[in-house]
């Protein structure tokens, strides 16, 4: 099983690299596009917050990936594996899934398809389930829930972004009194944004520390209250900084809008950090989830019901993402920065806030969703609020196509690799 361990490490790292190279840029796109951050700042923010997100919060979703679609306990069942070596089949199956998903992401990058890393691994694991323990032992209902989230998460992200932008327009861009719009409404509106960000931090970022927090009497309700309080506090601090902003009553609309956009540029930097953080935490699980499953199974020679993801696995995933970003992802960010010129900070803020809030809801429910597609949904939501000058909706067709191709490809490739591996190694 030594070779399995090394293969798992190599392909887990390869998958993390792919995520960093191809996907991490999507978290930063709207910020670079609106010139809220420069290209270099975007790379630094992405590197730091993707890493922190993966390291601090990556553990949560990995669990669902592993146990949700196929019950690993079946592999301990003598009825399925009379020789009692079910855990070996499990290891090679997860290996096949990991390799298939990583390969597919790489191929899709060549073809320019916007596939989701989450969908790739989910499709691969479903394929593994079908070939190893049969169609009837794949949790199709759970798979359906996940698949449904691919549709609902962009829609929820879109609806949130729609309302955020509508409110910004009504109370700030079109305020009767422009000074009150900026000094009062900008902090007031960012209060729920800050609260959401603190909620992400508490419920995802500090997930690994929940036991310690609980020991101090800090339960979910307390975390919620703390997030709200901190959100309000952050808004008060923001209000303090904005109190001196003055727009002359007779200022032209161009001047007014320029001041508003300047304020939102700062707000957008904050939301950009959290989107990168949320992406890191959400998507690193796609590579380290299977890796952790393989590693703990090999170490224990049996499948554990629940086990802590080893720290070195998390670090491997986090480092992989950052290296992917450093070796290739930065070029994607650079391209985005030069290509998107039609987004302003108010729009970027609305879209990122919608996306970040949706990812929080998804992670709270334990449903792996596609960060990438949620961002797309949020941007289109702002478009429906008449906030975008032009959107090319052909991307929706591309996304639908990539859904149709991703699942069969990764599933079938997993079946092939699984048959190959079990023939060679078992």
């Amino acid at each position, binding site marked *: 099983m030594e070779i399995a361990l090394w293969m798992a490490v190599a392909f887990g790292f390869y998958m993390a690299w792919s995520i960093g190279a191809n996907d991490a840029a999507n978290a930063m796109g709207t910020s670079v*596009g609106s010139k809220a951050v420069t290209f270099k700042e975007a790379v630094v923010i992405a590197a730091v917050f993707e890493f922190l997100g993966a390291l601090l919060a990556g553990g949560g979703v990995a669990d669902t990936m592993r146990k949700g679609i196929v019950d690993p306990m079946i592999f301990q069942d003598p009825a399925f594996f009379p020789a009692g070596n079910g855990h070996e089949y499990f290891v090679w199956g997860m290996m096949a899934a990991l390799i298939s998903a990583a390969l597919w992401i790489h191929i899709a990058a060549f073809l320019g398809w*916007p596939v989701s890393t989450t969908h790739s691994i989910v499709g691969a694991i479903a394929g593994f389930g079908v070939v190893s323990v049969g169609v009837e032992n794949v949790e199709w209902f759970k798979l359906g829930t996940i698949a449904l989230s691919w549709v609902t998460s962009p829609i929820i992200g879109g609806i949130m972004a729609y309302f955020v932008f509508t409110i910004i*327009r009504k109370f700030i861009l*079109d305020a009767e009194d422009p000074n009150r719009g900026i000094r009062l409404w900008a902090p007031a509106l960012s209060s729920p944004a800050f609260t959401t960000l603190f909620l992400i931090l508490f419920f995802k970022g500090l997930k690994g520390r929940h036991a310690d927090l609980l020991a101090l009497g800090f339960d979910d309700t307390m975390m919620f209250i703390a997030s709200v309080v901190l959100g309000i506090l952050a808004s008060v601090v923001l209000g303090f900084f904005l109190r001196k902003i003055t727009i002359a009553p007779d200022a032209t609309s161009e001047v007014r*809008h320029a001041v508003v956009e300047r304020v939102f540029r700062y707000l957008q930097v904050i939301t950009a950090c959290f989107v990168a953080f949320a992406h890191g935490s959400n998507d690193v699980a796609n590579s380290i989830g299977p890796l952790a499953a393989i590693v703990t199974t090999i170490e224990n020679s049996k499948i554990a019901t629940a086990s802590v993801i080893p720290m070195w696995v998390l670090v491997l995933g986090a480092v992989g993402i950052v290296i992917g970003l450093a070796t290739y992802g930065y070029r*994607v960010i650079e391209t985005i920065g030069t290509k998107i*010129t039609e987004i302003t900070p108010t729009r970027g803020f609305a879209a990122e806030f919608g996306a970040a809030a949706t990812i929080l809801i998804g992670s709270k429910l334990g449903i792996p969703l596609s960060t990438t597609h949620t961002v797309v949904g949020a941007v289109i939501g702002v*478009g429906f609020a008449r906030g975008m000058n032009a959107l090319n909706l052909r*991307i929706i067709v591309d*996304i639908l196509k990539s859904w149709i191709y991703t699942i069969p490809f990764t599933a079938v490739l997993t079946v092939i690799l699984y048959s190959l591996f079990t023939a060679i190694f078992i």
Partner: protein
Amino acid sequence: MMVRSIFTLFAKSPFIPLIQLADKVEECCDQVPVLFDAFFDGNYESVRGIAEQISHIEHEADVLKARLRDELPRTIFLPVDRRDFLDVLSALDAIADCAEDVGILFTLREMEPHEELIAPLKSLIRRVMATVAHAAATVRVLGTVAEAGFEGREAKRMLSMIDELGRLEHEADLVQDDLARRLFAIEDQIKPGSLYIWNKIFNKVGDMANHAERMGNRLRLFVAV
């Protein structure tokens, strides 16, 4: 490795090119009073040169229009109805087309000025030019209207500019009708061919204002809720 990004989602804003087109159309129309001045001065060589110049600028406007249309496939999602946008585009184009036609009509045959028509003709041109300039100014407001999301005070400002556009066009209309009456009052002194072309010239000049107003009414639909 091809860049895989979801941000092909963002298409180029069509409003900035639309403003550029309006500027180009205005530049084209600005040559019309220059042409008439040359005509009143009796410099027909210059008239032909300016007519050619108008035609040249009109062609540049056509290129801008074609490029803008090419960038608006059906999959493009705009904050305004795509058909309304294309209507504004074609109305702007029609203004420049009329300016070009005025120039061409002058080159069909050498026209002779009639004392009775000069003053009202100058008045008509002044009013039509004011209408066209106001139309272009209204299009230029689109930048801030889009920034404000096509609602609120910016949208109201544009609506009141469109109302003003309608008023300017109406004034130009009155002068045009008066001019036509004056033309036919002296029809006996004018050769039939000349009479025909003068009538067409007046119509084309008046149509510049008509298309400007039509563009305004299409623009109105951008901010209608």
